[in-house]
């Protein structure tokens, strides 16, 4: 048996809008004249004729063999997702632990607090959304915010739990908290013996790749 092995360039695409497809190849067909064009999904007779007329080589609905590098990308994606799930679980765990300590008049808000809005809670607050720039949250009790804070926080409780929020303005018992100290993904801020103590709950992830 005789055979020859080639490496060819493949351009994979699908046709969402025929007009868009045609105008793309009108402009770029020269770039693809030695490509194999793989089309996923439906393709009309009109498009077939169009590609033939432009002398482009195409094939429809085949599964491309997956190369090592693409396999690796897929694996990396799966690992990333797993890590995110684990993290999410850890956050929920931590929140439920702390929420047990939320006692006086616990209020739960899950809407986003927008610029110009002010939320004042006498007691504890669990906020499950963002605090946007220009919004203010005030609590006499403990405070947990699970998403980014870009607005102002005034808290008089025993503790707060906040995610990394470099743009926030945070005053805890009249003292401004340096947001650079909230460098971790989730941070607990407590008042112990009249001192503000910040403890990481969820560490900043280390990106080995970069």
């Amino acid at each position: 048996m005789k055979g020859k092995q080639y490496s060819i360039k493949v351009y994979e695409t699908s046709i969402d809008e025929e007009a868009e497809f045609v105008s793309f190849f009108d402009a770029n067909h020269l770039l693809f004249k030695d490509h194999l064009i793989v089309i996923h999904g439906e393709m009309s007779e009109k498009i077939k004729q169009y590609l033939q007329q432009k002398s482009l080589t195409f094939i429809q609905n085949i599964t491309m063999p997956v190369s090592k590098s693409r396999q690796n990308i897929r694996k990396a994606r799966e690992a990333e997702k797993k890590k995110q799930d684990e993290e999410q679980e850890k956050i929920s765990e931590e929140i439920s632990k702390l929420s047990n300590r939320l006692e006086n008049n616990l209020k739960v808000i899950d809407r986003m607090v927008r610029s110009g809005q002010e939320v004042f809670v006498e007691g504890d607050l669990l906020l499950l959304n963002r605090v946007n720039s220009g919004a203010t949250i005030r609590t006499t009790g403990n405070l947990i915010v699970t998403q980014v804070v870009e607005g102002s926080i005034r808290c008089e409780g025993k503790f707060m739990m906040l995610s990394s929020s470099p743009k926030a303005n945070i005053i805890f018992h009249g003292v401004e908290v340096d947001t650079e100290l909230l460098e971790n993904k989730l941070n607990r801020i407590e008042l112990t013996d009249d001192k503000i103590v910040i403890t990481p709950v969820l560490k900043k992830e280390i990106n080995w790749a970069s």
Partner: protein
Amino acid sequence: MGIIIAVISGKGGVGKTTVTANLGLGIAMNGKKVAVVDFDIGQRNLDMVLGLENRVVYDIVQVMDGEATLKQALIKSKANDSLSFLAASQTKDKSVLDSLRVKNLLMELKEEFDYVILDAPAGIESGYEHTIEFADAALIVVNPEVSSIRDSDRAIGILDSKSQKVKEGEEVAKFLVINRIVAEMVQSGEMLRSDDILEILSIELLGKIPEDKGVVDASNQGKPIILNEKSKAGQAYKRIAGRITGHNIKMEDVESNTTSFFTKMKGIFK
């Protein structure tokens, strides 16, 4: 019975009037009956962008005062028969508006048209509140810059507390239009990406419009850019109008410069 769409932004000068004119025309081009209403009392603009400034006889305040009927005051667009326009008053200021009169006018318009689009004034004061009070939906126009995002966030907050629908326990549908995107600046990190904007505002994205020099010129000539088939901004408006009228159209990619790359490549082969 039509729906009322308020075009709002918080910050001024981001493109509300341009969006109102183009989408009004675009929706009319899809065969719907549309009325666009200038709610920027004292600062009328929409008449110029639509090229109708010389045809204005009666304005919105005169209709509310009973000095003219709605029929007399509505002006048909030269570009499309299905589009009508109601001008803002030039002389009076916005204090002449009150809830009841606004409501009566809007209900009358709603009877007649499929879409009633209101061009809001800049800011979040009383003129703005009257524009959103009876809206069924809001188009929030932003530019990809921090001050615009923050002001629109504020405007959304007011919409969520002061509109009639919200008071009745319903929700006002909110859609985002990002205007004046410069792909090169997004790529180089100088301009906010639409993902970041969506994360802050968390409302549905309706469309992205690129920065396009032709827009200013088109507005000056009173021929909205959507009439120009070649313009990128015009095409973006067409797609948005399509989405509003229920067509499923893929989101445009105005943030990466692949097209300019391919155009460059094409140049090499010439």
